[in-house]
């Protein structure tokens, strides 16, 4: 289980960096959510809001040589691993200048040069892909690791059992990070998931740990242990980061769901445990940053968001004459 949070080894600069990374995801996604509601985005968007501490806690300790596989809720992982916000925004807007030149969209943003194998529209698909990337990392022998982020819904795909089995047998440098955000699309986890997800590592003998996914420092420390374990050649870990999906499964859901699947009280309770204000309070209380520092970061991110949107809106759509064959059988 998670150890008592301790930030003794983290510098003020690192702490401020974590704050910036989480807030950057939050503000970019808030804008994406607003744009989706305004009808500016052609497809569905699934927001990571409320779960930022998990992606930042892990990705802040990975390099471009490490691999991540993400989910349909993947903007946060992409940004935390170093993905460019302009290219992300243009992709979600469906523009030629997007990270995938408008061919992928929100659910398929990827940047292989940064070790981001990509978001994925199939629940649980990243689990097998990262297992293969971790096998590649093991063969390379340079200490790189693979991290798969997936939700509690994906934990109910059989592939998790298959991946744990082979990853333990082959001692693969892989970390399976289940972000238990309380919902399997529109179904509360309790109605579709038996037992504790973290316990699913036990029969395979894989290292495992549950952590408060809204506590950046707790996640960071847990990630450090799992990454060290993997880099040292000791095999896989299964981490269950318990967090909460503040937004719906998909931004547009209020327009088509006939009823709700959670109470306003529950949402309010979790918003009160939002990872970002809690972290801001922590750095302020510890004297690791001033309110002016946080305000400056807020302003810088606001400028980045504006620039990303301007870039996306100002970019052309891809030429339909070019589609279909360009990137297939290239």
């Amino acid at each position: 289980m998670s150890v008592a949070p301790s930030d003794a080894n983290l510098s003020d600069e690192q702490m401020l960096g974590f704050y910036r990374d989480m807030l950057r995801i939050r503000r970019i996604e808030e804008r994406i959510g607003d744009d989706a509601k305004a009808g500016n985005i052609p497809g569905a968007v699934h927001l990571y809001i409320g779960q930022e501490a998990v992606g930042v806690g892990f990705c802040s300790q990975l390099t471009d040589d490490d691999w991540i596989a993400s989910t349909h809720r993947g903007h946060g992982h992409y940004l935390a691993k170093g993905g460019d916000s302009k290219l992300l925004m243009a992709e979600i807007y469906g523009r030629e200048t997007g990270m995938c030149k408008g061919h992928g969209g929100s659910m398929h943003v990827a940047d292989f040069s940064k070790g981001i194998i990509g978001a994925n529209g199939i629940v649980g698909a990243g689990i097998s892909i990262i297992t293969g990337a971790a096998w590649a990392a093991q063969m390379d022998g340079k200490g790189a690791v693979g991290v798969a982020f997936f939700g509690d819904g994906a934990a109910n795909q059989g592939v998790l059992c298959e991946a744990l089995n082979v990853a333990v047998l082959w001692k693969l440098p892989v970390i399976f990070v289940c972000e238990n955000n309380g919902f399997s699309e529109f179904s509360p986890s309790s109605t579709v998931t038996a037992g504790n997800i973290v316990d699913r590592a036990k029969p395979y003998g894989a290292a495992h740990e549950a952590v408060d996914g809204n506590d950046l420092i707790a996640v960071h420390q847990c990630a450090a242990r799992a990454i060290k374990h993997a880099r040292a050649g000791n095999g896989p870990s299964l981490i269950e980061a318990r967090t909460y999906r503040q937004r719906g499964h998909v931004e547009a859901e209020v327009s088509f769901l006939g009823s709700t699947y959670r109470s306003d009280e529950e949402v309010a309770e979790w918003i009160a445990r939002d990872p970002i204000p809690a972290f801001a309070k922590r750095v302020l209380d510890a004297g690791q940053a001033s309110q002016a520092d946080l305000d400056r970061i807020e302003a810088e991110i606001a400028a980045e968001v504006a620039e990303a949107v301007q870039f996306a809106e100002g970019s052309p759509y891809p030429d339909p004459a070019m589609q279909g064959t360009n990137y297939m059988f290239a």
Partner: protein
Amino acid sequence: MAKKRMIQAINEALDGEMAKDPKVVVFGEDVEISLFGDTRGLKDKHGAHRVRNMPISETVMSGMAVGAAAAGYKVVCHMMFGNFMYTGFDSIANQASKLRYMTAGQIALPIVYMGVFGGGRSAAAQHSDAMHPMIMNLGGIKVALPATPADAMGLLRSAIHDPNPVMFLQAAGRGGEQGEVPEGDHVIEMGKASTVQEGDDVTVVAIGAMVRPALRAAQELARSGIGVDLIDPRTVVPLDSETILESVRRTGRLVVVDEARDMCSAASHVAAICADQCFDALKAPIRRVTVPDVALPYSPPLEKALLPNEASISDAVRRLLGKAATGGGA
């Protein structure tokens, strides 16, 4: 040239490519002992880290191929029987076939999925499918179906070099068949059909294991003065439609022989292309010799009755020419 069994040609292609390129790896079900013999001995020559037995976990296996290929390896993933691909179909249909396209060609994805396909050996319904039509329909995977040992070697080498996923399907129970194989690094470009026999009266396009009975039929028909232009496409994605169309324009008649079930078979596709592009040259309707839309049965007489053979191919050609030789009327 030297006479080799098909399985030996495949084994030598794998061995040769592994010797040349340390990034070529082979994994799958029982690849160490090798049920069919095609991967036999590779582990001893190239090391346990490059030739790895997998658990019977097709879901994670097909996805690991994607991850390892995305991370820089040339991956040969042996699925044993083609039917087992269905169990691992998400990573084939949703990941491998789409990843290059939806990420705008950011990476190469050199994967060869291997498996045997087709009937004729009482392997029964769940080990006898010809699954190439559904792979053809995915839009992002090349499909090779060698009919001779030389083509098996040349196409497999080509498949391993290819930056795209390739489905390499070997006709079940045909590994022992012998044929002349050129010495050295014999490579056959994908999408180049082979004209097995030349003739002017009717074009027969035969796919995979159907080439052999089609050739016997063509030889028998030649004795009756009927000239068959026999074409083996060798790959159905990409399909060498030019060679087929050129032949049909010359003969005016087309019979397509395919071991797939008739509905949406490769034969249907070849027929559609010819109907679209050389309708004016046709002197008679296009005929398909395929398998009825049922599962293949176990008992030899039942199975034999469903599979195309020399007699049914010959009969289709004769009927097309209005020269039914034996049995029922034209």
